[in-house]
């Protein structure tokens, strides 16, 4: 004997009573269960081979906008025949139309349908309509199938074509031609009872009372022992849960920071609004350099100038280095140095200004290693590869014995530790503040070669005026590019993207 839950049993017997086949909608209406409950029970019954769920495509009839209007008022032929009836059963077409308040362009249509529906005769000589005798005796013109359907649809909104009687089906086709309804196929699920199902429905199968929810009361009283718990359809879709997560790019920077700390680097800090002195002058960029034009760096509106009072010694030495090389052994730029230009406030355009500040502060030991993760700004037009605001990871290494070999060694280490690269390649590079300068490319399985960093040994024009005697390696890493590759992004704007859905769905690494 098959054991069924109450809902399942009820569904099965309802289906049986409905002739063994019915749509979900019909069953929802007949059983009074919600849609999901019918579906859940149906799935269980199908597993037990008591019924089959079949997808059936049915033609669904719905009113068009025009159809809705007529369903609410009435068809034009109805209005016209009523007017004729009120005018005594015989009337001039124009007079009847006027009484019925039918617009000119619809008169002929209304007249045509009246004739077709055999409600009246039309005499073209006299232009009169005469109501059919048979109808006249009935005292009113009965409702046609088309009108019945319109009325039904205005209440129920839609109906399946095969649920209609043959006459109504014809009416639907007619209304479709008049563009008052649409008939479109729609897939619906139909349940069909099986032979076993019929048997199960008639054999008064035992319905076991079931409990859905385990409650504290059931636990405390021990009633759970006698309770039959409903088994869930564990395959069913459930609502989504979105956890709080860290931002993927910031998490990536956290990892980079942790790696650098592990490699013996100390984090440097410095202001986002910076003097031109630390951003440019101290880094051997001449004061008339094109990179300092307003097209390449953001200037602060007000106040325009910062203070360099506490850096007077460095400023004087940098000034002399620019003008004549000072004691650095350089020719210098040969141009006049302006303190006003040095004090001009800007948004820092490169993280190297933090290295300049660290060197100038004298607060370091030799050897030491430093790094910074700095937000920097440039007046770029934002596109797939450019942002006007982005992060740079860079820093310095101070040691008495540093050489170009160390520089290459440091870059190789970064490539392996931070990018997880297998191979590295070096090319000559240019920065105004380092000589020699090296570009690092790293090869990573699955990614190919990527330009991963730039680096060099600070020029004496940079270190000496800031009071540093040891050689200093300066390095910067292309972390944005690395992040994009790791995350499969091709557009750098994605870093600051405000797409919550992307953030929610982004896998953690």
């Amino acid at each position, binding site marked *: 004997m098959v054991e069924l839950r109450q809902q399942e049993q009820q569904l099965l017997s309802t289906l049986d009573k409905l002739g063994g086949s019915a749509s979900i909608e019909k069953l929802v209406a007949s059983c009074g269960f919600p849609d999901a409950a019918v579906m859940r029970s149906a799935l269980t019954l199908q597993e037990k081979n008591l019924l089959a769920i079949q997808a059936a495509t049915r033609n669904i009839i719905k009113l068009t906008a025009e159809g809705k209007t007529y369903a609410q008022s009435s068809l034009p032929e109805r209005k016209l025949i009523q007017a004729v009836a009120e005018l005594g059963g015989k009337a001039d077409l124009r007079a009847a139309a006027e009484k019925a308040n039918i617009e000119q362009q619809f008169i002929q249509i209304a007249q045509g349908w009246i004739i077709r529906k055999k409600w009246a005769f039309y005499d073209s000589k006299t232009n009169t309509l005469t109501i059919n005798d048979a109808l006249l005796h009935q005292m009113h013109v009965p409702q046609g199938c088309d009108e019945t359907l319109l009325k039904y649809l205005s209440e129920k909104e839609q109906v399946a074509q095969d649920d209609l009687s043959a006459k109504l089906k014809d009416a639907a086709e007619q209304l479709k031609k008049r563009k008052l309804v649409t008939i479109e196929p729609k897939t619906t699920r139909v349940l069909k009872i099986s032979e076993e199902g019929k048997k199960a429905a008639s054999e008064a199968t035992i319905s076991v009372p079931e409990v859905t929810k385990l409650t504290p009361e059931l636990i405390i009283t021990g009633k759970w022992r006698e309770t039959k718990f409903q088994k869930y359809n564990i395959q069913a879709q459930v609502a989504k849960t979105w*956890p*709080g997560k860290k*931002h993927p*790019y*910031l998490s990536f920077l956290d990892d980079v*920071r942790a790696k*650098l*700390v592990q490699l013996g*680097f*100390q*984090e*440097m*800090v410095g*202001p*986002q*609004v910076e003097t031109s002195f630390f951003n440019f002058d101290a880094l051997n960029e001449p004061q*008339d350099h094109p*990179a300092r034009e307003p097209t390449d760096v*953001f200037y*602060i509106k007000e106040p325009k*100038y910062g203070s*360099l009072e506490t850096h007077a010694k460095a400023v004087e030495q940098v000034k002399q280095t620019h003008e004549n090389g000072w004691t650095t*052994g350089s*020719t210098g730029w*040969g*141009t006049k140095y302006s303190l006003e230009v040095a004090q001009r*406030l800007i*948004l820092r355009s490169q993280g190297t200004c933090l290295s300049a500040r660290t060197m100038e502060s004298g607060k370091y030991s030799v*050897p030491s290693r430093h790094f910074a993760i700095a*937000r920097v*700004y440039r*007046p770029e037009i934002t596109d797939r590869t450019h942002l*006007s*605001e982005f992060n740079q990871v860079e820093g310095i*290494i101070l*040691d008495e*014995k540093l*050489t*170009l*070999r*160390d520089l*290459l*060694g440091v*870059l*190789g*280490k970064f490539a392996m530790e931070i990018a997880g690269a297998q191979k*590295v390649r*070096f090319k000559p590079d*240019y920065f105004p503040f380092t*000589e*020699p300068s090296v570009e690092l490319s790293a090869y990573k399985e699955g990614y190919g070669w990527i330009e991963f960093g730039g680096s060099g*040994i600070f*020029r004496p*024009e940079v270190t000496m005026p800031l009071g540093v005697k040891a050689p200093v390696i300066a390095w910067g890493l292309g972390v944005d590019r690395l992040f994009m590759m790791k995350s499969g992004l091709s557009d750098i704007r994605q870093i600051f993207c*405000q*797409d*919550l*859905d992307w*953030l*929610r769905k982004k896998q953690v690494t």
Partner: protein
Amino acid sequence: MPTIDIDYNELQRLLKVDLNGDMEKLDDILSYVKAEVKGFDEKENAVTVEFKDTNRPDLWSIEGLSRALRGYLGQEKGIKTYLLGKSDVEVKVDAKIFGVRPFICCSLVKGIHLSDEVIKGIMHLQDKLDQTNGRSRQKTSIGIYNLDLIKPPIIYTAVVPSEVSFVPLGFSERMSLDEVLEKHPKGQEYGHIVKKHQLYPMLFDSEGNVLSFPPIINSNDLGKITEESVNLLVEVTGTYYQTVLNTLNLVTLALIDRGGKAYSTTVNYPAGKDYLQSSVVTPDFSSRVFKLAVAETNLLLGLDLSAAEIADLLGIAGLGVESVSGDYLTVLVPCYRVDVMHQVDIIEDVAVAYGYNNIVPLWRELPTTGKAKPDTAFINTARDLMVGLGYQEVLNTTLTNPDTLFTKMNSAAEKFVELANPKVITMNCLRNQLLPGLMEFLTVNPSVEFPQKIFELGNVTLPDALAETRTKDESWLAAVSTHPNADFSEIKSVLDSFMANFGFEWQIRAVLHPSFMDGRVGEVIVAGNCIGLVGEVNPAVLQAWKLENPAAAFELHFQSLIDLKLGRM
């Protein structure tokens, strides 16, 4: 970074290489001079080359580029010598020009065959030099003339703008200098350079014919070169003598490379205290002499090279060696290598010639201790906690605009840092709070499933008259929750949990704030100080951001908590 377009076939011919269209191969070759292929137009046979080094104008012509590369390709060694003949052409400098645009250098180039291609190449180089080295003609500008139309000596002087008129290049009617600045496109572009002066620079020949109005425009009569021009006068004027001379050298050498013969001119400066020199012969192709120590070279590179090996590598890099004595080399730097400022520039050339990839990298363990900045640990714990409370971390730009910060937040503009030259109007200041960025974030996610709970912990920048940079950066924290049932008690509960986990005692004090609903907002008080706000967002703000769900938010001056935690207060 400067770029030039060069003829692909011509480059292959000059470098004696067959590239077969392999741009990676060309990239490898170009890397010796810190350049790379930016584009290749196969139809036009044009390669666009970009230079990272902005101080190597000697590379900005196909001849100059191949001159440098042939050394690395093993085809030439050392300095390329250029011949310079003498002429009796004289340039007279008038004392009046000193305060305006003091320096001029001239050369003659004779017997050149100017094809359309060559003229284009020269114009390209001239423009690059004017823009980059010449700082958009401010520092130097170049003029080239048909020498056969000019009657030397040449006069360089300054004139009253209204008193001189001439027909500028590309026009047919005479104009006064003021009219040139007003009507000629070059006048409109570069007029600002001369306008600050009472007198404007002028170049005449001995018969009073106008050569040009430097640095604006040449005369249409004398200052036009065509395919028929055979003998040329080149002139560079400017404000820095060395740059003026370097520029003249570069242009003259490029013309020699294209088949011309160069001749010098004598520039005579007026007597008086202004000018240091009285008479100079230009151009000047002599090399500069640098002393290079073998020990310092090896010390910087970490190599063990002998003087002879270094000399050999210098040759590859296109530098000359005059002599080797003991531990020193006397290095000759050709006049076109204007980038060399210091011994280290020469040492880098040695390393490039040696080959970076032939140097064995070295990683030495140094006794250094790594350390994140003191704030980092606390900031990260706070982020962890917000994540644990179910909030998604977001990252917004610090560049924003007052409409976002204040107008849409229904609040009055507070002190904030504005940019003088914003690129776009939506990014014209730095944020001084975080919540507006979060509201903006919510606005672009109207159809993403609710509840939406987001937070940001990031920098804000505030004016600070006492600080060296007149600003201070602080870490702030803001969080917002929005869904149909979001309310004050929800966000207060989150804030309470946040504070409790850090062990901060906090109180709430009623306040009025236009961004929040009256009676549903409070100041967050820690250790007697207000360090933030918590409340239900004002529906006026929600509407301004086109948000349909209630939102509850808090914003903390997290820096105060950091300082409290680290004992800085």
